């Protein structure tokens, strides 16, 4: 799955909904295998994508995966400066082009581990938890 999708996934276990630790999931940086896929860069869309994202969760997952270079506040609407363009290009690479091909992620509340195989996250629960 693409990095952007991590921004929409929480622990599927109902009882974890009352906790604030069920989102985002915690990605195991050592187990996650990343691949870059080419997608056309469109800065005007990227700004709109940022509107839809929880920046704290972007930072958290980026850090799990070893990227600590993001600004601590969500980049704001831009005056097409070169510097801003550099940030947007980095975000394009991270959010849209980075694919987690294999890996695992854990709920910070209950500790349950979910797996990503062949780029597909498996959020199904064993019968006793469903």
């Amino acid at each position, binding site marked *: *799955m*693409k990095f*952007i*999708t991590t*921004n*929409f*996934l*929480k*622990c*599927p276990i*109902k009882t974890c909904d009352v906790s604030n630790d069920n*989102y985002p999931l915690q990605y195991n940086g050592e187990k996650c295998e990343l691949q870059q896929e080419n*997608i*056309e860069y*469109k800065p*005007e*869309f990227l*700004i*709109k*994508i940022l*509107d*839809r994202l*929880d920046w704290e969760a972007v930072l958290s997952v980026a850090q799990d995966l070893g990227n600590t270079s993001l600004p601590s506040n969500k980049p704001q609407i831009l005056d097409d400066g070169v510097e801003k363009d550099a940030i947007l290009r980095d975000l394009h690479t991270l959010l*849209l082009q980075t694919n987690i091909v294999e890996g695992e992620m854990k709920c910070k509340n209950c500790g349950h581990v*979910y797996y990503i195989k062949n*780029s*597909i*996250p*498996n*959020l*199904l*629960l064993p*019968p006793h938890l*469903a």
Partner: protein
Amino acid sequence: MLATPLYNCDYDRVYEPAEDSFLLLDSLESELSFLRSIFEKDNYFPIILEIGCGSGIVTTFLHQHAIPTNKGLYLPVDINPWAIDATLQTIKKNPPTKDLQTTTIVDPLLMDLVAGLKSNSVDLLVFNPPYVPAEAVPNLPPGTNDEGWLDLALLGGEDGLVVTNKLLNNLHNILSPKGVAYILFCARNKPQEIQLRMEGHGWKVDLIEKRKAGWEVLSVYKFQKIKTNF
């Protein structure tokens, strides 16, 4: 008329597109200008969720024809791993044409309904559920290679509504403020009663298409949150 995607899967394990699938495609096509009017504005980046994607025909149709707009994150979901594989292949077989200039991501998820999805994120939701009345909703087959995946595609428990009702009762937690849902019913689901019930809970509900298919009468309804101004 918009082209129907090419598809080809193992129909012993994945639901074969049928009248219900095609009615849903026709409904979404007839809603095209409505959907564009909401989502084309301001370069909005929508989240599109299809529950129970099966062969992938519906998500692929949306993606291929830039519905609701030429950008967005498409999340097709199924509990059947074979359906996820089939969906990936159907998507690959039917890329959007260059002139649509799309910027889209398609990420299929193995998941039960919306269990692992952050709340109030979905802008367009589409669901062709297991709607056939039955004793009970079947359990997941114990292993991927076991039989029983097709039963899960069809059998919807009491009134054929057990799975659909789970979703409807939680719809206010699923849709974004702009959110729209299209859900397919058969006559034995008594969709008019559902319409009244949902309207009573503050939803705007519209019948989009209705069609006789063999001995079934299938229909597609649209659900939107009524905006309240406090």
